[in-house]
């Protein structure tokens, strides 16, 4: 595998993490479905896995970078698995709406497992770690840089959204409003 191919694969994986986070944001902002604490932790895990791909893009592929992506995905799979287990018994209901007939935590579990399998298959090719990023020019490249910046924006947006929802404390189990933002506006508004 050449450095360019490795870079493109990492950029695509990072784009996949961005797509998942943006899609969750779309449901939050357009359909008003506020994320529960476990949902937020799954988003954080996608960000954790994405950091591994950003490191690969910027500094070239290394085992430690793929390890970071794998650990993030494993943590996310644990959180998503916990939420699936909370709702798996018939009659216990679910949380949030569905996409393709599956709740988002189920889709997240599938995505995390797919990420783990994908990175593991990628690592079967020894060439992926021998690829010298300097061979095709240093840095992430134009596409990789764009993915990197998009990923940073999405993670920062999640930070702002989470702060508005939960403030400095833990989030409500079944959030219905941006508690911290409402509280802040209540204090800052006209009297």
């Amino acid at each position: 595998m050449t450095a360019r191919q490795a870079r493109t694969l990492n950029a695509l994986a990072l784009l996949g993490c961005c797509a998942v986070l943006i899609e969750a944001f779309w449901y939050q902002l357009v359909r008003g479905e506020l994320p529960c604490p476990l949902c937020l932790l799954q988003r954080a895990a996608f960000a954790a896995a994405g950091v591994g791909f950003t490191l690969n893009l910027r500094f070239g592929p290394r085992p430690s970078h793929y390890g970071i992506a794998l650990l993030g995905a494993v943590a996310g799979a644990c959180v998503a698995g916990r939420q699936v287990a909370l709702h798996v018994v018939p009659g216990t209901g679910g949380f949030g709406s569905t996409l393709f007939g599956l709740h988002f935590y189920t889709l997240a579990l599938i995505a995390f497992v797919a990420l783990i399998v994908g990175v593991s298959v990628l690592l079967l090719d020894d060439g992926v770690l021998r690829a010298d990023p300097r061979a095709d020019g240093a840095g992430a490249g134009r596409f990789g840089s764009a993915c990197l910046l998009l990923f940073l924006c999405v993670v920062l947006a999640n930070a702002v959204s989470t702060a508005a929802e939960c403030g400095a404390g833990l989030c409500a189990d079944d959030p219905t409003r941006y508690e911290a933002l409402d509280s802040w506006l209540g204090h800052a508004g006209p009297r």
Partner: protein
Amino acid sequence: MMVLPFVGFAGSVIAVLGGRRGVAVGLWLAAMAGTLVLFGAHATATLRLDF
């Protein structure tokens, strides 16, 4: 509290963009530890898996 992992991961990405690999990995580790602590804080109820 819940915002801390996102702040840590965002800081990690900023460090990556700035070419500071060590800082990026350190921030990632701290944010990951925070994520796991928060997971532990939210996973307290016993699962009812009696089908």
